[in-house]
């Protein structure tokens, strides 16, 4: 075994913000007062918030230290399945930071906002081209928000036809957001079982689809990392009963330039700019979840829409059947700029290449580790592969133990215990930006962890040992929640 990447560096402790500072300090250059003071009515005045007073140095050291306790894509391989933790290019950050973009007020007349409007209009067109759909809204703030927006368009579609429906089909491999979104749209989720190959069969869909069912929420490629081979036939069944096909596009990274969902029967789908289009995840957001639809759903998209006429861009609210608004303004524009920059930097050829290499990397890991870990579905995968802890059962070592041990080796663990249909799932998505050497190191790490599981299982039970903290007591955190200090 070669030397691990993981090692204990100098990790500095840092108290909570309010355990630092001295009254009267300030880390902010107060703007000059050039007007007299107008005291406010005593009835209205408050005492002011109980914030600590800190100097700029206090603040800078505090957050620099905190940042060092985090693992990011820039730190190392982050193979979280279903999350597409690809490298976030730095030029994208630079472009999004241009003062014309950051300083823009969202309510100025369109003539004063041409740069941003043009960027948004073109991004809509690019996304429509990549997905094979007809129209796009960029307003949703995140994947789950896009999902809600997409499902609201389906809801509006059925309502508009004068025959609302009560149910929606959701495969058992779906993300939890799918049923939660369905509930928000007042649809009851009907679970459809995937078959022994890990995908949906046309029969299982035909058995439950009826004219009370609004449609189906498919994830394609699905959360097992498999392409839903029967999408076209499933779409025909759904359409024949008057339903619509929603596609959760979280896993689009596998098929850019290879499959266009709009060509295989999908009516509406959302994308995650923070997955497929390289915008950073930011520790949990902001993301961006555009929704792409076919012509028949376009009237229902949120307003305002961006309209182009002779090279001039404007915002229009003139869509009477629109579902309304899903955010106050125009969506997470700062994130869109990064995705736009990414698409412009990659061009059509390298976007397709990105998908091919993402799939190559995943299959390479699948083949290399299938002797070490139990492979849930032994068939070619897309951008991710799903293992389980079945082979480690007799060693009394679980998925969680192996995940925690990976940290000591200098890797972020894969997604664990999802999808639910695989007991003890370990879902690995390397993405295309990982090189063969780094992937080989990851494979080697997993193999030696499997050896440790046999020879020294306590190393795994007690892992991680090299992070800022050891395993945390989540039970007390939930029993006696302490959410503020």
């Amino acid at each position, binding site marked *: 075994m070669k030397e691990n990447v993981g090692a204990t560096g100098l990790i500095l402790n840092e108290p909570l913000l309010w355990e630092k500072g001295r009254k009267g300090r300030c880390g902010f*250059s107060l703007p000059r007062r050039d007007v007299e003071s107008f005291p406010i009515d005593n009835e209205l005045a408050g005492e002011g918030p109980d914030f600590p007073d800190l100097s700029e140095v206090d*603040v800078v050291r505090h957050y620099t230290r905190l940042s060092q306790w985090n693992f990011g894509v820039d730190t190392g391989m982050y193979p979280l399945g279903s999350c597409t933790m690809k490298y976030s290019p730095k030029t994208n950050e630079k472009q999004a930071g241009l003062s014309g973009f950051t300083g823009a*007020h969202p309510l100025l007349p369109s003539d004063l906002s041409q740069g941003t409007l043009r960027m948004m209009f073109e991004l809509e067109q690019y996304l429509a081209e990549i997905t094979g759909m007809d129209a796009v809204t960029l307003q949703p703030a995140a994947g*789950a928000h896009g999902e809600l927006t997409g499902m609201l368009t389906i809801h509006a579609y059925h309502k508009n036809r004068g025959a609302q429906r009560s149910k929606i089909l959701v495969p058992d491999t779906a993300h939890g957001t799918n049923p939660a*979104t369905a509930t928000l749209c007042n649809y009851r989720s009907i679970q459809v079982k995937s078959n022994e190959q890990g995908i949906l069969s046309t029969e299982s869909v035909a058995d439950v689809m009826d004219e009370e069912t609004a449609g189906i929420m498919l994830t394609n490629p699905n959360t097992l990392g498999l392409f839903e081979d029967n999408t076209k036939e499933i779409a025909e069944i759904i359409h024949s009963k008057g339903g619509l096909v929603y596609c959760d596009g979280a896993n689009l990274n596998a098929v850019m330039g290879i499959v266009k969902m709009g060509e*295989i029967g999908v009516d509406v789908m959302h994308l995650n700019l923070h997955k497929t289009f390289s915008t950073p*995840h930011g520790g*949990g957001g902001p993301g961006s979840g555009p929704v792409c639809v076919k012509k028949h759903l376009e009237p229902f998209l949120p307003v305002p829409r961006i309209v182009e006429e002779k090279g001039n861009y404007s915002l229009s609210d003139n869509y009477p059947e629109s579902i309304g608004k899903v955010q106050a303004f125009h969506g997470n524009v700062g994130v869109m700029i990064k995705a736009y920059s990414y698409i412009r930097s990659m*061009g059509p050829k390298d976007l397709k290449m990105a998908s091919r290499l993402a799939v190559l990397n995943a299959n390479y890991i699948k083949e290399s580790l299938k002797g070490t870990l139990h492979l849930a579905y032994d068939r070619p995968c897309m951008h991710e592969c799903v293992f389980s802890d079945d082979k480690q059962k007799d060693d009394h070592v679980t998925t969680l133990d192996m995940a925690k041990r990976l940290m000591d080796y200098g890797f972020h663990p894969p997604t664990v215990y999802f999808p639910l249909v695989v007991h003890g799932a370990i879902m690995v998505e390397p993405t295309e930006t990982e090189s063969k050497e780094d992937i080989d190191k990851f494979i080697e790490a997993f193999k030696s962890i499997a050896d440790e599981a046999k020879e020294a299982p306590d190393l795994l039970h007690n892992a991680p040992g090299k992070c800022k903290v050891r395993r945390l007591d989540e039970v007390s955190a939930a029993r006696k929640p302490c959410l*503020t200090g």
Partner: protein
Amino acid sequence: MRYLPHTSEDIDLMLQAVEADHLDDLFSTIPDDCLSKDDLALPEALTEWELDSHMAALSDAMAVSPDYKIFMGAGSYEHYIPASVSYLLGRSEFVTSYTPYQPEVSQGTLQAIYEYQTLAARLLGMEVATASHYDGATALAESLLMAVRISKKRKVAVSSLIHPFYRKVVRTYFEPTGYEVIELPYLKNGFTDLAGLDELNDLAAVAVQSPNFFGCIENLKKIGEKIHNKDALFITCFTEALSYGLLKNPGSQDADIVCGEGQSLGIPRSFGGPALGMLAGRKKHMRSLPGRLVGKTKDLDGKRGFVLTLATREQHIRREKATSNICTNNSLCALAAAIYMASVGGTGIKKLAQLNHDKAEYLKQELKKAGFTISFESPTFNEFVVEFPAGFDSVYDCLLNKKIVAGLPLAEYYPELVNHYLLCVTETMSKNDMDSFVSEVKS
């Protein structure tokens, strides 16, 4: 391509390992009629340097201060952001990490969010705050849905002086649910008219914004009493978080749920997003909160640490019975707000909020002196409504050519308010800017 590390030798070796001859073979299981026949019709790739000039040109086609003097707030405010905030926010350990599912390698994000939750709760005077939401409008919609869940009643009322876009978002969220949304009118003095409440029964919640869309500071205490008498939950909403540096916070005025937009706290306007949805509540409703929460705990050695907690409310566990479909928060925006609040500090935020109030008050007085009518007499923070003479729209356009934006015309949102404009002044506007604005509108 610099983001794709594979050499052709790497590709060959890896293809061998997966027993494929060509990259296309990796997709051989996809049915033929699903494969796209044409290449993507997208513009050819740009070099980094070409992208720089392309994006600079787009950015240059935007009207922004200081070139433009923009007297417009209406839910998006210009405040100075210290370089230290932007700098720290750019630390790639924060930027390139995911939702902190693995706490041992995410303590930075987790402690930062815990601190954000604490500062947010202190700012709003509440017991608990969530790890953040998409924006103020969605935070309001989620708050109203939360009230429906808690009370098991099916009707909510919202003030018509809540930001018009926020109300639109609420309507979008409520449309499929079958719950009823009632709008409360406003009074001549710029306050919400609660008289209609007497007629309404079975209300889950009433939501009021303060400072409201006209900038007026509502008497939350009195409103709260009235709402609580109706046995409904009292939700307060805000678009200008900085106002609570000066004003009584909603928690001290008996709000049950407080929600709104935190963009003012160190987040650039960015054409409206990303923003920061803030949501805070009472401990007793903790398990009904939507969205992520971070809690304090200990590790195996007894050392302090932080984890995502109360996850059983959420979609990945409770699925169709979750409190929301939210998967994440706007973490980096919450981080920006935390760094900003820490930088300004308790002493600083009072001074800064007072300065905002005083500058807006100065412009208000000067406009009065110049003979214009201030539409609503009630006290305001950093926004107020002024009535300009009939035909002012052509002056408005002339001013645009002079790079002055004379506020937001209100007639589009309140048809009865023709010639009324919502003006905003923050610490970034100088006395000179305001003086020349007044002399321009006078002439």
